[in-house]
């Protein structure tokens, strides 16, 4: 291996890389995914019941409901708008508050309200929402609560919001899109255009080519992984440790990319591989999304050992003692993969 040749090749990769679709995709896609997740999916996956209100007067109940953390309240200007929202499932239940509703409630008069329930709304939401409305109405009418309630929290675990549950998936996307796809497509492209053959008849070795392409992948992967964690305010209290884990993750991604590039003949086959193996790589992300899936399922997949330390550091405030075992497994996997890459590179050279 020649450092000079590797640096020349690296310079070439950086010069031409940004014109490559995969290079741009590896930068743009994780950012878009992250933005979509934080803007949309953060509320999409919520299990909070959704209440729609049409206020024909000027009721305080709307503001009171909007202040609640337990219910998502949306106000509609017309009954037909709200009916549409209920029919489409945008809200579980819609109510129409008549004019002078607050006055009637405070005078203790009987008030009639119309309610619309979405047919697919869960039974528990159909109970929670009327009870919530009843409590708000009683509060509005100044009724005194006839009980004292003491809430006691048991156990240590804290429920993770959906934005946190999706973070491992986004980080994996950031690390693997650049780390795996860039070296893989680059090598396949060189093979298809026969430029790889042309390169190795010069003093450049396959090893030099693989290292330069791998370095580009690692740098891009690391930068994107870090950027995504910063974007999601998940850099935690141990940034160096986090960057270290991301670097190990980037190395794994690149090793998979180099292997794919060396073994696969064309981009079509790479697509086919990505179609199935991509899901396997992202599988630990699904395990975090759905806590019903046992954790051991995630441990089967190599990428688990990237995301678990990241989650431990960024979301659970963990340090080296908490992540050490998983990091050692990750290093072990990287060494095994490195051995396979070296073996495959030698085979490629012989061909």
């Amino acid at each position, binding site marked *: 291996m020649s450092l000079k040749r590797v640096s020349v090749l690296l310079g070439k990769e950086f010069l031409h890389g940004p014109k490559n679709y995969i290079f741009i995709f590896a930068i743009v896609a994780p950012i878009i995914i992250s933005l979509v997740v934080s803007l949309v999916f953060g509320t999409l996956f919520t299990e909070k019941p959704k209440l729609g209100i049409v206020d024909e007067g000027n009721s305080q109940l709307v503001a009171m409901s909007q202040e609640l953390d337990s219910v998502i309240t949306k106000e509609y200007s017309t009954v037909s708008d709200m009916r549409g929202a209920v029919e489409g499932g945008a809200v579980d239940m819609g109510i129409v508050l008549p004019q002078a509703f607050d006055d009637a409630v405070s005078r203790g008069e009987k008030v009639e309200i119309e309610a619309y329930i979405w047919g697919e709304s869960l039974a528990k939401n159909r109970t929670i929402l009327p009870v919530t409305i009843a409590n708000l109405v009683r509060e509005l009418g100044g009724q005194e609560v*006839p*009980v004292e309630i003491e809430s006691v929290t048991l156990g240590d675990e804290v429920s993770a919001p959906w934005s946190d549950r999706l973070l491992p998936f986004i980080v994996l996307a950031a690390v693997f899109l650049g780390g795996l796809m860039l070296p893989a497509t680059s090598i396949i492209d060189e093979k298809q255009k026969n430029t790889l053959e042309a390169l190795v008849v010069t003093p450049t070795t396959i090893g030099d080519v693989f290292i330069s392409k791998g370095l580009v992948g690692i740098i891009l992967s690391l930068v994107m992984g870090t950027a995504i964690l910063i974007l999601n305010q998940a850099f935690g209290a141990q940034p160096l440790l986090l960057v270290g884990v991301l670097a190990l993750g980037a190395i794994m991604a690149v090793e998979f990319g180099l292997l794919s590039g060396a073994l696969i003949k064309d981009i079509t086959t790479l697509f086919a591989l990505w179609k199935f193996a991509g899901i396997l790589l992202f599988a630990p992300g699904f395990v975090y999304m759905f806590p019903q899936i046992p954790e051991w399922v995630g441990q089967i997949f190599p990428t688990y050992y990237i995301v678990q330390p990241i989650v431990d550091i960024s979301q659970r405030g963990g340090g080296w003692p908490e992540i050490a075992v998983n990091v050692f497994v990750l290093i072990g996997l990287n060494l095994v993969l490195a051995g396979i890459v070296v073996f495959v590179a030698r085979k490629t050279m012989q061909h």
Partner: protein
Amino acid sequence: MNFRIIRALVAKDLSLFFRNRFYALVTALGIVTYITIYLVMPGSVDEKLEIGLYAPVVPPVLEQLPEEGVEIQAVESEEALIEAVIEGQYAAGMALPADIMDKFASGQKPQITLYFHADAPEEVKDAVEFLIRELAYLQTGQPLAIETSVEILGRDMLGEQIPPRDRMRPLLALALIMFETMGLASLISEEVEQGTAEALLVTPTRVGDLFAAKGLMGVGLAFAQAVFFMAIVGGVSSQPLIILTTLLLGAVLVTGAGFLIASLSKDMMSVMAWGAVVIIIFVIPAFGIMFPGTISGWVKVIPSYYLADTIHQAANFGAGWGDVWSNLLILLGFNLVIVWGGIMALRRKFE
């Protein structure tokens, strides 16, 4: 159109497909992975709020609870209640004092202790607290001065909610066949790139034969994969003929899209670029099914809406021809336009 030539071309493409054992294998593994994702997703809906109750004296109001959304189960001791909450058996535990009825009768406020697991979401904590308050109001003879007229919009799915994995079924089926868009576009692009298409056209093979062969290949592969997937995940157990017709139309749709992508692409990279754009747009309607109410009416301009919606309606609600004929007709219309547009664009490219 020469059927012998078409048959020979399809046979050639199929033999190329299966000769590449790796490509064939990962395609099969891709289907297996999608099936696995379906199987590990939650297969049931937790509709009820389960609350554990320790009550030396049970207030009569608890019997008035709406049965549909809340299930209260009595436990023998407060310790057993705490244990059950920690184990996640109940969303909440409610411990009532022995003198609750005496205190209500004397106008005093009894103290009720609510136990929650630390993992319990805020909405559950608030909902249970609201529920207890409302029950206390009712027990103390303070009914709510509100009369509600309720209308259920859409089919009432109470007790027969669609599990998340069945909501995800159209997305998985769509994703599976959408990837064939890229496969087909790559195949055509490869033929153009390597000059084999041109070579074929100097033989008695006509452009129409080439399109028919590629189209048959694309439709066949997409349709076979989708049918296999749907059959395994139980997607054809309800309205099989409608599902098969829809999948066939879907396969034609992705084939047309594949033609269009191939006509716009110069190489594999541009196939990826255009393919990613088309796939992202086409899977949006399936997300609307997974997360009802998140996507407004504009989604109906996307052709795949009629594919995903028909699968959803037929597989999850047992919708018949009378319910989905308009969807199928629109999908057919889109197919005609897209396939015609794709053929025209490709023909121009060949010429």
